[in-house]
């Protein structure tokens, strides 16, 4: 009975804390400016199914894609077992779903195979990161917490899967020994294709076996709750956010940049000689939009969602021509910077009830050197498995630097002047535009 109460409390606390963290993430994402991504619902839905559920983009690199799919499916499917664990835990039953008979055996048996595959895949992932030292996991932005985060998750999965198999093995042995309520009249319940190999390693003494079985059972469920609550602090949030993120992702053509609404208004005024600048409706005149992005508040919320969804896989950086030629720009770091700053702002709000100016901005995280190195080639956007758009963030910061601070590199200022004066980025006269026809 005490066990049941304890279990229920742990379950409620775990779920409650998880929900409050998710609410916090949603609150933070909503700090962004409005995004207009409610169009093309069908196309977006399809995109979500293909890219998030089907992990289509992962398959550009088949080996990690396959391993990732195993871990993902394995993890989700094995968690069906959690339904049984929860019911057993609350009502003090044992293997309540075993009435399903043959199907139940089939399920437990496949869970065991999957668990083993997950352990194998996760081990390979660990080796790739820590022994083979794949280049994209060694960038400067991966030092410290991001690296620990990635490994921690791998350990988590290994331990959880091992606990699951150990639990089954002890249970199986107890069933064979006809011990207490572990004994089912109908014979062996569940099938244990993998864990039966642990039979001989386990002690023969039923009391110790019960201890092991119970221990692994508690460990498994508490582990899952801890994992759930760890998500918010980790790049692993993508297992949830990949779905909305791919839904709201930029639709092709990728080279299309939105035209800033705030600028449209100003240009309309400039172009129309009859417009009276003072005749603007009052509510619009109130607070002029800042051009571009200085801080997370200035970004559309989609990019804040992008930042939370980023898996820190570094595929974007891997294909970035600026990064590949040794420049400081790394699109992954751009996404991570947005998240770090957003977290900082979130903590600020938690502490003060509302955001209190801390004298910082996104520009304390992202340097101009990074911002100006981008060729806007869209390779990062094309590559990202969760359809993030680091390029749009870069452009938003450029817009701020140019239009609010006039802080473009001097050559670019010259280019702007040329375009303004001669209608070309170089210093040629517009009157010479047709010279090519008669030249040889």
């Amino acid at each position, binding site marked *: 009975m005490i066990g049941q109460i304890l279990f229920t409390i742990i379950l409620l606390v775990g779920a409650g804390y998880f929900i409050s963290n998710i609410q916090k993430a949603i609150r933070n994402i909503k700090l962004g400016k409005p995004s207009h991504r409610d169009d093309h619902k069908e196309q977006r839905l399809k995109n979500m199914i293909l890219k998030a559920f089907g992990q289509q983009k992962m398959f550009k690199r088949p080996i990690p894609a396959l391993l990732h799919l195993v871990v993902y499916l394995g993890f989700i499917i094995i968690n069906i077992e959690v339904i049984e664990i929860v019911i057993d835990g609350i009502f003090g039953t044992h293997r309540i779903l075993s009435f399903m008979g043959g199907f139940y055996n089939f399920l437990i048996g496949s869970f065991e195979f999957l668990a083993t595959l997950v352990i194998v895949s996760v081990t390979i992932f660990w080796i790739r990161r820590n022994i083979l030292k794949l280049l994209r996991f060694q960038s400067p932005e991966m030092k410290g917490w991001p690296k620990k985060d990635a490994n921690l998750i791998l350990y988590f999965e290994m331990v959880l899967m091992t606990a699951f198999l150990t639990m089954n093995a002890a249970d199986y042995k107890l069933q064979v020994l006809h011990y207490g309520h572990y004994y089912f009249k109908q014979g062996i319940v569940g099938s244990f294709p993998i864990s039966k190999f642990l039979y001989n390693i386990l002690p023969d003494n039923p009391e110790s076996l019960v201890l092991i079985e119970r221990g692994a059972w508690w460990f498994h469920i508490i582990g899952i709750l801890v994992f759930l609550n760890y998500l918010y602090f980790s790049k692993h949030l993508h297992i949830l956010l990949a779905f909305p993120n791919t839904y709201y992702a930029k639709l092709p*053509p990728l080279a299309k940049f939105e035209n800033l609404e705030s*600028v449209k208004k100003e240009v309309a005024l400039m172009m129309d000689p009859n417009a009276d600048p003072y005749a603007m409706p009052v509510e619009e005149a109130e607070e002029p939009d800042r051009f571009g992005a200085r801080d997370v508040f200035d970004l559309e919320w989609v990019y804040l969602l992008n930042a939370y969804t980023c898996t820190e896989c570094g595929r974007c950086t891997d294909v970035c*021509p600026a990064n590949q*030629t040794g420049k400081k720009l790394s699109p992954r770091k751009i996404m991570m910077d947005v998240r770090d700053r957003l977290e900082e702002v979130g903590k600020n709000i938690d502490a003060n009830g509302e955001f209190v100016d801390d004298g910082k901005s996104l520009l304390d995280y992202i340097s101009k050197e990074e911002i100006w190195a981008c060729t806007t080639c869209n*390779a990062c956007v094309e590559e990202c498995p969760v359809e993030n758009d680091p390029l749009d963030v870069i452009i938003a910061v450029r817009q701020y630097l140019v239009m609010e601070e006039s802080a473009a590199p001097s*050559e670019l200022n010259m*280019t*702007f002047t040329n375009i303004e004066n001669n209608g070309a980025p170089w210093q040629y006269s517009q009157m010479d*535009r047709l010279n090519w026809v008669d030249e040889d």
Partner: protein
Amino acid sequence: MSEKIKVRTMAELAAEGKEPEILFWVGCAGSFDDRAKKITKAFAKLLNKANVDFAVLGTEESCTGDPAKRAGNEFLFQMQAATNIEVMNSYNVKKIVTTCPHCYNTFKNEYPDLGGKYEVYHHTELLQSLLQEGKLKVEGGAYKGIDITYHDPCYLGRGNGQYEAPREVLHQLEIDIKEMKHHKENSVCCGAGGAQMFKEAEPQKEEIFVFRTREALETNPKVIATACAFCNTMITDGVKFFNKEQDVKVLDIAEILEQGIKED
């Protein structure tokens, strides 16, 4: 090749009360850059040969604003767009063809929302359909045995999903493209986009054009084909960097087609 190119301006035609079927937008590089002007001429000759009813804006043409927009100067971009749209709408322009993927992208994707709605073609797209319709006929085998690779411009390929038109033109010339390791959606930028063309690069190990040209040269080509004047400049610099300018030519799809066309 000193045959005279026939080019009329929109203003001349308007004075005669005429409107051409299509506007050829030459672009800044195409108007002023010595190398790019050759591409412009090759394309104009092809238009002449196919008897396409076209005109240019000439001195009324101005930068689309693409470099300004990519560099964050949205204000300047929208000013340029407004001016250009005013000019084009005053001539009642319906269709545009351009040899520049950046101009192409702004017209196709960014001008409509600002009041400039046109049917927009990249020159490789128009050339492909002229070949298909039989308005241009190729001399088979002109490129036999010549190894050619093709570099996808970002704003045509990945940015607008147009991978096939330039390749199709090359196929018509019976050219078997030797693809680079990274091509189509995985293509690597030449380094010019995003206004990089107009500024020094940030501290780096090497130039992007060197990086990209290395991969192009790995296919052992005689010709590196591309479909953008900026890519052309960058890769030409890359070829010089590797001291290969004697062996490897960098040519636009229009130039390649122009040399392989059947004279009647």
